[in-house]
């Protein structure tokens, strides 16, 4: 019984996503970058974005973390590429609703990332899931690189 709930959290695709995260690493010339931290557990995540002509052209995240934060970073970066900052900001809200409530009105916006909805049954892990998304929002508002 317990494993059923667990299985919803740790679907195979999530485990795979965490083991082989996409867009893991650094961008060579990010326009936006930010480092966020989950101080209660020590996880750190650095997110690089390249925004050109009002569209996110590239994204990469670095840092170690649990299955949930790594899978979330992988899914998040993959989904925001090609989007405008305004859309990303909506996605961040939607994702947060999804992992808190288990559903969200416009969850289609999240594409594959919606698979993380199982987190809502593990409220202690919500912060792991939202870390990457929080980074995206913060990178866009405060992370602009001036050179």
């Amino acid at each position: 019984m317990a494993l059923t709930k667990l299985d919803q959290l740790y679907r195979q695709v999530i485990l795979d996503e965490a083991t082989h995260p996409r867009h893991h690493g650094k961008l060579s010339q990010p326009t936006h970058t930010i480092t966020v931290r989950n101080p209660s557990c020590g996880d750190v995540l650095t997110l690089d974005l390249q925004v050109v002509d009002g569209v996110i052209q590239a994204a990469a995240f670095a840092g170690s973390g649990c299955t949930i934060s790594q899978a979330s970073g992988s899914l998040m970066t993959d989904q925001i590429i090609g989007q405008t900052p305004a859309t990303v900001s909506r996605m961040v809200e939607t994702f947060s609703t999804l992992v808190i409530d288990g559903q969200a009105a416009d969850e289609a916006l999240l594409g594959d990332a919606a698979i993380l909805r199982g987190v809502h049954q593990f409220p202690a892990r919500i912060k792991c899931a939202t870390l990457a998304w929080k980074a995206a929002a913060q990178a866009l508002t405060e992370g602009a690189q001036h050179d």
Partner: protein
Amino acid sequence: MREQFPFFAQHPDLVYLDTAATSQKPQVVLDALRDYYLNDNANVHRGLYQLAFETTERYEAIRAQVAAFVNAAQAEEIVFTRGTTDSLNLVAGSFGPQVLQAGDEVLVSASEHHSNFIPWQQLAERVGARFVVAPVQADGNTDPAALAQLITPRTRLLAIAQVTNVAGGLVPVRALADRLHAQGGIVVVDGAQSVAHMPVDVQAMGADFFAFSGHKVYGPTGIGVLYGRRALLAAMPPAQFGGEMIDEVTDAHSTWAPVPLKFEAGTPDIAGVFGLSAALTFLQAQDWSTVRAREDQLIRRLRQGLAAIDGLTLYGTADSFGIVSFNLTGVHPHDLATFLDEQHIAVRAGHHCAQPLMARLGVPATVRASLGLYNDASDIDRLIGGVAAARGYFLGTD
């Protein structure tokens, strides 16, 4: 009401008139403490497991409850402390040096409790500011006009009790706060004696900081609250360092968590927070106009009864909030308190941590009776009778 307080089942004959020192606790508060230890006991902001997570959520929900209770703008403006003294010292120690410079003035009334007097005196000494002490009214109450007159362009901080603990009068904080704010000053309000007697609205009164103690508002000992405006708390450095209050720690350097966690180093008094929540819920359920009318009646009855005794000096006024201080000529407060104690009447005799006020009143001490929700007219009558009898005992019936 009295039957909600199990203390009185253990002390059926006791007239407890020292609530201003510490209140007795309703059953719901004792239950909350026990329930916490039976059901919820786990450390907060640390564990990932369900129990620890739920306790943390509950702890943070209580922060929101406290915010609503004092009408703070947001939960993050509430810091859990050990009590009023701890709260006021946190502000004086951490925020004080940021707002006060040499030559500035910090203003208090001579009616303040030591906990809202000495921290500012010491701060002023430390930074080379002037510590200005306003005179009080003849009855021992704070004198708002005297305070207003002492506000100068250099007054950066006013520390004031909303209700004082000897004369018990309500201070019109807002008008003074407006004066201070108009010149960019800061107002710190000591709410130790007000919270149990009225709904509190920190925004309406114009408090930049507001402090109170759990144990005086029917909650547990060891827990207190500091409200602070978000921007001020954010600018204020932490006073203690350790677990829970950090962002990142390296050998060379540490950074802090956002407010309010940066002020809550180490394991907090979690049970105390749960107990405080029950006390505030209990207070929130009171019908304040009824409570006030009842308290008013008891205070008037007490003042009237005492006034009829020869040689009795009353401090404060008839609209005090639950506190009546007095002296009986020719009988030292201690002797009076001992005499009353023998009749199972618990009042306080002493300087009430208000030596600067005692100096103004020209007495070493007073007797103080203070009321809680559990007191009734029979308590009042026993006190009046006791004081009259003491007079006869010590001075004869001339």
